[in-house]
């Protein structure tokens, strides 16, 4: 395991897997991630990304372009804030693999709002059809609804 801290972002690299925790903002330098990861297929664990702004997104795009040239890039447990912004960037469609991601859900029964992890591989067909997987409310067990327009989360899965 190796790693570094850039701005308010902690990066840990183990084999071909990098885990990012914190903010991808004006002061985060992501080029070091490509240096630490081996050439070939890689996985980025993104559950801990709590914030990304427009300048952070430009840095992120540069990182993904470098990694993509070397092999398949798989994004795992992508945080809610990041998946919404990835959906705004057309070039990510079909160019990275998304194993799982977080999405905002709301319970029609008890009103609870929660960010739930969606298995993008298991629900691949539904996501391509822009249909939100029905997931149970962590508070009352009722089936929850996606809290936003499907394209804000699932556009990236369209061919």
């Amino acid at each position: 395991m190796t790693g570094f801290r850039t701005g308010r972002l902690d990066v840990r690299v183990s084999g071909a897997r990098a885990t990012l925790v914190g903010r991808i903002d004006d002061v985060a330098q992501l080029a070091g991630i490509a240096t630490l990861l081996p050439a070939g297929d890689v996985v980025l664990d993104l559950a801990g990304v709590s914030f990304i702004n427009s300048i952070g997104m430009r840095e992120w795009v540069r990182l993904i372009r470098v990694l993509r040239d070397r092999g398949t890039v798989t994004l795992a447990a992508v945080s809610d804030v990041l998946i919404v912004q990835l959906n705004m960037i057309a070039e990510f469609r079909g160019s990275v693999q998304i194993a799982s991601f977080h999405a905002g859900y709301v319970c029609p029964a008890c009103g609870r709002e929660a960010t739930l992890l969606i298995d993008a591989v298991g629900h691949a067909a539904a996501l391509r059809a822009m249909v939100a997987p029905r997931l149970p409310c962590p508070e009352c067990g009722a089936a929850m609804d996606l809290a936003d327009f499907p394209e804000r989360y699932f556009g990236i899965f369209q061919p």
Partner: protein
Amino acid sequence: MESPSQSPGKLVVAHPDRRAQRALHRLVGATSCPVQIVADAAALRDAVDADTIAIVDATLAQAAPGLCDLAARAWIAVPGEGTAPADAPAVDALLAAGWWHVVAHAMPILGEELLATIQKLRRDDVFGLEKYVAWGAEVRSYTLGDAREREDAVATMARDVVGVGLPDRIASLVSVIADELIANALYVAPLDEHKQRYRAGEGRELGRELRGRDVVTVRWATDARYLAIEVRDRWGTLEPRGVAARLVAGKASAASGEAGMGMALAYACCNQFVVDLEPEVMTEVIALLDVRHKPTELGRSASFHTFVAAPAAPSAEES
């Protein structure tokens, strides 16, 4: 009995549907301003003069996008039919065509938004988030003393938003919007004598004491219908003509991960985006999040408004 100071003029409602005409008439009639109703673009052109605020069906506006170039006090596009919000391509097309006011949402938001917009124009009283939230809502304010306080201000806001009972999803949106708007006020607003935005390339990690024109103020409030975020700079250098078109262009930049997407990102995260400007004095951007309705019950695009305040009249001592 006195009424608030308002300039003369009239409102013209242009909509082909009689039922929609009646609904809009009732809405804008609340301003106590004379209202004229027309059904098509030709009648609208005849009815409008320089003192008119025109409220135009979005479908009609799209069919004649150049309408907004005619002399009038303001041109406001409103959703086309029934209770459906304006669709995203229609909103983008109107912004790209230079419309300064595009309402994206259907009733009841349309009513609230339209009334505030018309009264801001008629009273030439453009600044302040108080116009968008109920009277009882407490307004919280932060003044940045140093450029490095941006992150703390944003984090404090996000924490306070969760503290009033709003979900993490709203706090995340607030974080992105506030961060982008404050960054714009700190690094894009300052203009030197050569009209260069001389802070644009400044290192974002650097400290800079904010005094005089560099002061940036952030305020927010919620009344459980809207959450309003307001960011002010003391430069007033935002170019009002074309700011809407730049937001649409910014979406394209965002689609390729290029520069220039900050304001577009803030716009994409909210439900109503308002730019208030007094040239060379102050720029205020207000982003409104609807916390009453589910996002899917609203328009896919945010409403957009640009207001330019008339320069303050010189005082008796100055004149």
